[in-house]
């Protein structure tokens, strides 16, 4: 037997990142006490290096490696690049927040990088096992990050809940995958797709029934990761209990990976069963929009409110997938990217309002922000109107493109339900604006972020406006990613 070394080129970014995580761990061990900023700088450098490598090795077309377990295509490249940008922004936003809370150490950065590595593997997986490996690497890192503040009861409780429910969801997913394996005999996503096609053409009823049961479990697993109702229970508790910096991370980058996950599993793997998963996704999406939007109204904790808002947004995003065509997928991807951009901004703002010994957690902490600092109030205003989907902000185009895909697929009633619940959603976003602009401040503590955070949050808010005025480039990017890959 002659051994052929695998082509490593498609996995260069992952390999580089893995090396860099080890470097961060070692550097922290050696110099962590004296130079706490080293880990931070190395983490940023690692992300920058990954971006360069991904950019340099990106080529049109699809490349498989590791015996078809790993794929490098345009969608993977674009999602990864967006992930690096997101994670890098997370690091900037959370720096001073974690510094005053004694979490500024090597663990935080190495866990973030490990989670990033997990996301990259998920995005590039073309095999059920790779997919699962990436997912677990991401999830385990996240559980640990939630529990990073050992002295906080809320955080520990959140981590416990997250872990137990997350393990359950992973079990669902594995069970579903094993059923698909049982029916098809293969684990490679492309081969799974081929076999399913044959099953459908051959009309083997029994095999198909097993596939559908497997699909149900897979969809349940995915729904948990996306925090889609009725698998959303963990999200509010984790969002509320975990340190805001960690919530910022959980709420942003993993959503991009989860989108990649949906594409790989449902579309590439089980695309010919679309008729079956469409119905499931419609139920999940509608439930998420109802539960997310209605429950968010009753919240007084801003992190919890944003958790429910996430649930409703993920439901809306799923509507694009429901339409089951390239147009729908690219609109979902656009929605996801836009959602991540807005989430970064709003959690960045929450951390901006927090300071040593004070957590900005209640929605009342936004009271009178316009008096305290009109510019940050304006940025928050842009983010809130964008989350509510009001033009000319980019959140509107995200909703527009998904609605267009839904109507194109012929689901008029679904579009009507979606817009009605985004009306409900508008209420609680408006409430934040009301607090900022119409009410008097409760505290007049100055808001003094470091220069780079100030610049980044301004850029973040203005990007929401700029992409709203000129959404074409971002839409074209998502379109390109989907067209080249699916």
């Amino acid at each position, binding site marked *: 037997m002659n051994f052929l070394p695998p082509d490593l080129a498609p996995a260069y970014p992952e390999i580089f990142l893995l090396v860099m995580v080890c470097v961060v761990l070692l550097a922290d061990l050696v110099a962590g006490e004296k130079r706490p900023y080293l880990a931070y700088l190395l983490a940023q450098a690692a992300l920058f290096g990954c971006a360069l490598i991904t950019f340099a090795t990106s080529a049109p077309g699809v490349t498989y490696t590791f015996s078809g377990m790993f794929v490098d295509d345009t969608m993977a490249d674009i999602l990864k690049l967006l992930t690096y940008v997101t994670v890098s922004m997370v690091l900037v936003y959370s720096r001073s927040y974690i510094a005053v809370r004694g979490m500024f150490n090597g663990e935080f950065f190495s866990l973030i990088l490990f989670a990033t590595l997990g996301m990259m593997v998920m995005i590039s997986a073309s095999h059920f096992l790779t997919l699962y490996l990436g997912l677990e690497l991401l999830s385990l890192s996240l559980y640990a990050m939630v529990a990073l503040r050992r002295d906080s009861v809320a955080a520990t409780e959140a981590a416990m809940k997250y872990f137990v429910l997350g393990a359950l969801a992973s079990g669902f997913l594995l069970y579903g995958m094993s059923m698909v394996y049982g029916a098809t005999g293969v684990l490679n996503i492309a081969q799974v797709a081929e076999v399913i096609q044959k099953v459908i053409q051959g009309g083997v009823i029994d095999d198909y029934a097993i596939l559908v049961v497997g699909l149900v479990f897979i969809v349940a697993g995915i729904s948990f990761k996306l925090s889609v109702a009725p698998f959303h229970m963990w999200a509010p508790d984790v969002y509320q209990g975990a340190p805001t910096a960690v919530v910022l991370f959980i709420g942003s980058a993993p959503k991009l990976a989860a989108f990649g996950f949906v594409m790989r599993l449902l579309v590439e793997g089980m695309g010919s069963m679309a008729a079956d998963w469409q119905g499931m996704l419609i139920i999940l999406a509608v439930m998420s929009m109802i539960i997310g939007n209605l429950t968010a109204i009753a919240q007084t904790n801003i992190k919890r409110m944003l958790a429910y808002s996430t649930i409703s947004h993920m439901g809306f995003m799923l509507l694009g997938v429901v339409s089951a065509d390239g147009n729908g997928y690219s609109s979902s991807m656009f929605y996801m990217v836009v959602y991540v951009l807005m989430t970064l901004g709003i959690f960045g703002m929450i951390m901006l309002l927090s300071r040593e010994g004070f957590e900005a957690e209640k929605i009342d902490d936004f009271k009178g922000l316009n008096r305290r600092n009109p510019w940050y109030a304006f940025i928050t205003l842009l983010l809130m109107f964008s989350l509510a989907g009001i033009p*000319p902000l980019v959140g509107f185009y995200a909703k*527009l493109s998904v609605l267009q895909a839904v109507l194109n697929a012929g689901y008029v009633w679904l579009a009507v339900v979606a*817009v009605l619940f985004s009306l409900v959603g508008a209420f609680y976003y408006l409430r934040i604006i009301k607090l900022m602009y119409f009410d008097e401040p409760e505290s007049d503590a100055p808001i003094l972020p470091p220069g780079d955070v100030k610049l980044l949050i301004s850029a973040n808010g203005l990007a929401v406006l700029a992409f709203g005025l000129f959404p074409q480039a971002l839409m074209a990017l998502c379109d390109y990613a989907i067209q080249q890959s699916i």
Partner: protein
Amino acid sequence: MSSGFPLLSLIIWLPILAGIAVLATGGDRNAQLARYLALAGSVAGLLVALPLYSGFDPLLGTMQFVELHPWIERFNIHYHLGVDGIAMPLILLNCFTTPLMIIAGWQVIKNRVSQYMGAFLIMSGIVNGVFSSLDAILFYVFWEASLIPMFLIIGVWGGPNRVYAAIKFFLYTLLGSLLMLVAFIYLYKVSGGSFSILDYHKLPLPLTPQILIFIAFLLAFAVKVPMWPVHTWLPDAHVEAPTGGSVVLAAVMLKQGCYGFLRFSLPIVPDASQYLSGMMITLSLIAVVYIGLVALVQADMKKLIAYSSVSHMGFVTLGFFLFNAYGVEGAMVQMISHGFISAAMFLCVGVMYDRLHSRQIADYGGVANKMPVFAAFFMLFAMANSGLPGTSGFVGEFMVIMGAMQVNFWYAFLAATTLIFGAAYTLWMYKRVVFGAVANPAVEALQDINRREILILAILAAAVLWMGVYPLPLTEVMHATVDELLAHIARGKL
């Protein structure tokens, strides 16, 4: 004006940029600078809009000053602007109102002056965008964007119950618009991928989809007009808004809804419009008669004028759904005239409110003794509001009643009752506020209006009288467009 010059873009973006500049002046230390900058911006906005009238060819029924650039290729959305005889007068009305708002808020607004002035300028630009968009999504963007500054104006500078009013205003209007968006996307699909409003005008549609689209449009526009029974947000919003906000709401924002009927409902779904015209006429007549009676019993002056606005808007929608030239042109005249009169009425109430901080009719009485100049102006506007011949209020109402007479005597009869109710509620309020003995000691201390206030009211008085005596310059620009529209509706799409 050469055809290549992007005049409409200038009219839209100049006020918005001026608004941003005003916002940039920052806190209240630079309040005076913000005021002058805002005034300069709004006057410049009016001046650049004038070539729209002088360069407009009234004989053409088609779009003029057209600008067409690709904007979002992914969905075939264009930056497509143009005006016809319906949109052009509304843009002028809006540009005319803005400087008046700035002057009206000159001294009254003391908190966050730059934000107040900036919001008005930005809104003025956005509203111009609403009236000149020929792409459905561009229209929708401007349409919704105009909610944002208005929401803040009501909520930040409004009265005691401002938060409730602001949120009610926002959610009410958003509800209607979202279904309109669904209708636009549906039309996009049916038309094979176009968001051009002019394409929609030509698009053949069977009756059932037409009716559904009509209902989606109706919700959006009826809330904005507002028509009975979805008018309840308006009195709240008006009462709580600062004077400038009330004026813009009445003079300009409501016209967006009316304009929507002319630009979307009637030409895109003409057969459904005719099919459902009975319902529309009924709703309009209920607004005219019933809301007129509601206005009669109001104790709050602003609320009274708000209900009177709803009643007058009933005339506008009535005129549209008569499908004859008198009706539609009368409705157009009524829209412009209501822009002047309601602005003037709200400013008059504002003048008194600034002095006495009360809007209750019962707190006044005998104002004429202390403020004779003001009482004279107020008299003129009250007469115009009740439709006295010689003022602009009469022209529109008379034309609509003439139009109604061609269709059905009873429509005309019911519509004509407004001449009685309108006179009753307006003049009765006027009598209680202005005439009689001075009952309240605070009224005793009133100062007559200053030169700034005289200037605003005099400009509006001139506009009201000029349109009442000689409306031809207004009607002649819309003849061709209205004829085209009516011919289009008569042809139908089935």
